[in-house]
């Protein structure tokens, strides 16, 4: 991603533009909540984290250099605060959940090998979702399944899919925020999306 010399959203906040502020806290509330909940599972704690992040942002607006978008900057603050919060609570976290989700499984297939024949072609191909009614695909039950599938992901995969597909941060921004290579970012995104796709396929079948 290219550096932008000025970020209109941030400039408006600096000027004290209240409408711009209200707009920003509305627009980013959902994505930032999901992001916080990658690290702290409790909804109320996540809400506290997001609120604290905005207060931090207001306090430090003048020092913000505007090299990234407001969303990226806020995401960074939320990640830091939520991680600090989790560390405080980490005595409750089991070892297995901390150890899960390294990248050692990166070469493992994301689709059940038995769905392919010996020739590597589909034996049981996916059936198209074209006939799934839109209302079902975006219904609240489907969303609940998707949420569950994301909660089941290893944390490292979860954070990438939330940043990319919920917060809609760019690939480069996510690599930077998580200090991982672009390739690693893609691998984690792929594994995460493939797992959620599988959950959706099972649910819609």
């Amino acid at each position, binding site marked *: 991603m290219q550096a932008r010399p000025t970020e209109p959203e941030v400039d408006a906040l600096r000027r*004290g533009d*209240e409408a711009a*502020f*209200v707009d920003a*806290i*509305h627009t980013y*509330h*959902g*994505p930032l*909540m*999901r992001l916080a909940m990658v690290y702290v599972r409790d909804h109320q704690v996540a*809400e506290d984290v*997001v*609120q604290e992040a*905005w*207060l931090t942002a*207001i*306090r430090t*607006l*003048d020092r913000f250099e505007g090299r990234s978008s407001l969303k990226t900057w806020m995401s960074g603050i939320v990640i830091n605060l939520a991680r600090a919060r989790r560390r405080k609570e980490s005595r409750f976290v089991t070892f297995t959940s901390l150890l899960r989700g390294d990248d050692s499984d990166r070469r493992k*297939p*994301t*689709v059940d*090998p038995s769905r*392919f024949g010996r*020739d*590597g*072609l*589909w034996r049981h*191909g*996916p*059936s*198209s*979702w*074209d006939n799934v009614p839109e209302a079902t*695909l*975006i219904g609240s039950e*489907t*969303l609940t399944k*998707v*949420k569950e599938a*994301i909660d089941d992901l290893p944390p490292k995969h979860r954070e990438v*899919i939330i940043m990319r*597909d*919920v*917060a*809609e941060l760019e*690939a480069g921004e996510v690599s930077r925020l998580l200090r991982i290579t*672009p390739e690693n970012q*893609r691998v984690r*995104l*792929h594994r995460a*999306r*493939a797992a*959620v*796709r599988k959950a*959706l*396929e099972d649910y819609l079948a």
Partner: protein
Amino acid sequence: MKCREMVELMTEYLEGALSPLDRERFETHIAGCDGCRAYLEQMRATRNVVGMLADEPIPERVQEELLKAFRDWRATGS
């Protein structure tokens, strides 16, 4: 390219990260394979459905507190 390999390249394709040659191979395969085409569509649909998790309204109490903080900051001109 086999379907088994194709499914592992879907995200790289969607991200525009394939080399021009691999991209061409990918697209040639997709054009003639219903299963892989459906899989690619499902990966796109999955991304869109996940995106809907972003819809969460900000609680009024939180908005009021933040707005107050923003006004305080503006008032002190710091």
